[in-house]
């Protein structure tokens, strides 16, 4: 029964997850739109999940902890996205802006 374990080396999947993580990191660090920062964070969480599933499938496929860990990451990402977007909406109502550069009243 051919599977991905014989077809693709593990390091390729890890490099894919690393590339996705670094692209998400760049997006989270450099965008001014706050929702854009959240999009970068979601990309990083997806990269972590790909890593988890790759390690589970290639090294210990009969242990169930891999997909369970990934499911918890998905649940926590959903909760964090909900609260973060609620905060963005509240900031927009107070300041009329979602630019991360302009919400700096704590600075100085």
């Amino acid at each position, binding site marked *: *029964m*051919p*599977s*991905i*374990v*014989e*077809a693709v080396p*593990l*390091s*390729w999947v*890890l*490099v894919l997850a*690393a*590339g*996705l993580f670094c*692209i998400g*990191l*760049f*997006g989270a660090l*450099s*965008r001014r*739109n706050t929702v854009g920062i959240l*999009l970068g964070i*979601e*990309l990083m969480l*997806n990269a972590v*999940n*790909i890593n988890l*599933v*790759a390690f589970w*499938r*290639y*090294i210990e*496929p*009969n*242990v*169930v*902890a*891999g*997909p*369970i860990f*990934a*499911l*918890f990451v*998905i649940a*926590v*990402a*959903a*909760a964090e996205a*909900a*609260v973060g*977007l609620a*905060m963005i*909406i*509240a900031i*927009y109502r107070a*300041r*009329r*802006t979602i630019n991360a550069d*302009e919400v700096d009243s704590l600075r100085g």
Partner: protein
Amino acid sequence: MNTLIMALFLILAAFILFSAVMVVSVKNIIHAALWLVASFFAVGALYFLMEAEFLGVAQVLVYAGAIAILILFAIMLTRDTSGADDRQLHRRWWLALVVSGALFGLILVPTAMTTGWATVPPPSPGQPAGIASAREIGTAFMREYLLPFEVASILLLVALVGAIVIAFERRERRRRVLTLAEQVRLRRLQEGAARPEVPAAPANVPTAEEG
């Protein structure tokens, strides 16, 4: 068959990375959210390729079905009314590029490529491959992982209540016609939000707008 699997993986990987680059680089934030949805679907397809079917379905349902819709609603509720669409990257975005490029090229790729991972040898044709499927995931959630399961449900409840509390709009602010003092205050807020280098378009008088 192996080359087919490798070709599928390379196509999926190219699409994932391409849509991720599109997410962080397009100007329109709605287009960025749609490219993110495309990357969610591609990651779900990758889970199916790695034989984690339950996780693939959960990814499509939760990420592409709920989180993406939530992001689009938040974008729609926070549209910039002054129309000022100045640059969407920070002034020092090249520093973020250097940091993420260094993390990728100097730390992650050498570690992934040079470590000898202890991968399982493929099973002999006699015995079936024992891969944890949805049945084992469900059993584990009720046995070994029962406490984290319950804690995660409490976390979701807390996030639900917290999001409502944070974004709740008090009833007295929903009047359609604002008093003159409220109009002046709103105009001052909007003009304060516009930056000097942007030619500040006069904010439309909010007569039918919630405070």
